[in-house]
């Protein structure tokens, strides 16, 4: 019920739903996922039990009422009981109750009593009419209730999503404002006063510590955004070579003077992807490689087309991964046993989340010669982008 409703309400959310269902609920205590809402319906078998119970109670009551009103009025008691039942159960059990009461009226009350044959034509017509009216009324009631439930669920979903977003925004604001204050104060002090050597070293420590704290907060918030299903990729035509270059430029400070070799053929197609999310995913892979591989070894980035995918491979000459870790390496907070450096273990989970939300996937393997290979797969499009005619011309002069 809930799943069907969601796709009907917002077709765009399917991809985020998938990713948030897969991850095992980290941070879920903090950020309510819309999937926390369950249908308030009882399980099916209980509804049938309830229908049977309603029938038994109505029948028992009717035995007394029969003496006062006669057997034909009993049909009205049954009708009332079915309408009431339909307020609480689905259409199936309502129909079941309708059949039961029709049979019950026929068997217990319509003469001859305690037999299914009916002697009177009038009673036969009555039975048929009862059956049809009860069926329609019961189904209408059940449908009304289902609609109301659907509206409520949709409202709850929207509300929970809104709450999640508000919470994420305010947590992010509260965490980032003090960091902004520290960084701003430090950089102002740095640029407006003459500091002794020692003070400069201390200032450098403050600056790098707050930059690190900022990255940690950034990771946590990214993970929370993935988890809460608030992540909406903004797909746009991207030049992968440009993306690689801009990304590496953005993480210069974190990978120091690491040698990075980029292999990208000139004729790579443009792909539809989220530039920022893909860039962040690539950045995390490169930082990961730089963390685990010895400092003097190069990191290789290869972009190429493989079938329907554009792949972005990051490989290093590090120790590689123990085979039993390959499966779990993308799990949030997972840390490889060999981990010596700090970190939350969110970087690779974010890579996976950011790529999967765009419809791509990430793979990891060990190279034959040692070192790990991470590959981002992004779908290339069947229909290449329309270009203005001038692109194919040579220069005018």
């Amino acid at each position: 019920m809930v799943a069907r409703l969601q796709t009907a309400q917002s077709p765009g959310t399917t991809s985020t739903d998938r990713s948030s269902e897969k991850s095992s609920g980290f941070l879920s205590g903090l950020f309510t996922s819309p999937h926390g809402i369950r249908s308030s319906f009882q399980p099916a078998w209980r509804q049938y039990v309830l229908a049977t119970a309603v029938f038994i109670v109505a029948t028992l009551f009717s035995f007394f009422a029969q003496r006062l009103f006669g057997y034909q009025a009993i049909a009205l008691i049954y009708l009332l009981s079915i309408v009431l039942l339909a307020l609480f159960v689905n259409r199936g059990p309502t129909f079941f109750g309708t059949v039961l009461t029709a049979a019950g009226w026929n068997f217990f009350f319509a003469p001859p009593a305690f037999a299914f044959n009916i002697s009177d034509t009038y009673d036969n017509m009555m039975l048929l009419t009862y059956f049809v009216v009860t069926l329609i009324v019961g189904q209408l009631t059940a449908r009304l209730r289902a609609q109301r439930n659907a509206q409520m669920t949709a409202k709850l979903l929207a509300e929970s999503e809104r709450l999640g977003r508000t919470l994420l925004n305010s947590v992010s604001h509260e965490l980032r404002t003090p960091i902004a204050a520290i960084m701003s104060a430090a950089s102002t002090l740095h640029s407006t006063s003459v500091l002794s050597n020692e003070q400069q070293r201390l200032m450098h420590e403050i600056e790098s510590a707050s930059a690190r704290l900022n990255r940690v907060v950034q990771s946590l918030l990214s993970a929370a955004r993935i988890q809460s299903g608030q992540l909406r990729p903004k797909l746009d035509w991207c030049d992968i070579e440009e993306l690689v270059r801009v990304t590496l430029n953005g993480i210069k400070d974190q990978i120091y003077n690491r040698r990075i070799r980029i292999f990208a053929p000139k004729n790579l197609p443009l792909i539809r992807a989220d530039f920022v999310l893909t860039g962040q995913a690539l950045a995390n892979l490169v930082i990961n490689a730089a963390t685990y591989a010895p400092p003097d070894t190069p990191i290789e980035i290869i972009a190429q087309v493989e079938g329907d995918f554009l792949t972005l491979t990051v490989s290093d000459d590090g120790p590689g991964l123990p085979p039993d870790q390959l499966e779990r390496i993308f799990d949030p907070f997972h840390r490889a046993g060999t981990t010596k450096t700090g970190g939350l273990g969110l970087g690779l989970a974010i890579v996976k989340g950011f790529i999967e939300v765009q419809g791509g996937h990430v793979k990891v393997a060990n190279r034959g010669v040692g070192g790990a290979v991470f590959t981002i797969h992004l779908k290339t499009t069947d229909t290449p982008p329309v270009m203005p005619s001038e692109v194919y011309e040579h220069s005018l002069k």
Partner: protein
Amino acid sequence: MNTASNKTPLSVLVIDDEPQIQRLLTIALEANGYRVSTASDGRQGIAAAAQRRHDAIILDLGLPDMNGIAVLKNLREWTQTPIIMLTVQDGETEKVECLDGGADDYVTKPFNTAELLARVRATIRRAHHGQTEDPVHRFGAVEINLATRRVARNGQPVKLTATEYVLLRLFVQHAGKVLTHRQILREVWGAEHEGQTQYLRVYMVRLREKLEADPTEPTLFATEPGVGYRLIEATPASI
């Protein structure tokens, strides 16, 4: 520093609800010779901007009473004072909205004060000397003459297609400013092509190949991920 020699100091209005950020921005700006006024919410900010002329406005996107973008749009209805927005990380959509809504620049929190001051200086300079009459512009080794439509690199003429030239001219006219994808597409290809980012990607590659010393290490055309492109200005010593 540079502004201290001016007779009347340049004034900056800071609209931010966080008292601590307000204080720190005030210290940093005053240390650099600016006169600073502050406002803690959108309504106060608009009132303060209307009360007296400022040379620049620093506007936080997250204000308690109204959305920063609404404040920006209100201000843009009646003033051309340079506006620099303070945005958060992951806020690419908002950054684009700010620039499309008339902001001159944005700085992402947490920011380095030196970077913010550089942006303030650059936007004020653009606002003051925006309508320069000199048709010749220089960016590193590249020289563009808007009057004769000649483009040269290291003194050697560079052949550009008509569209490449229009794109380059747009960057030159807004040197130092981030132009959003939509703004560039609308100006160069027309409003009906606003969504065709692929044109832009292809033309940026071509422009970089023709004008950058090393197209893989661009020093002229900077990519602002998820937002747009910026033609990097040579940083002059003073405003």
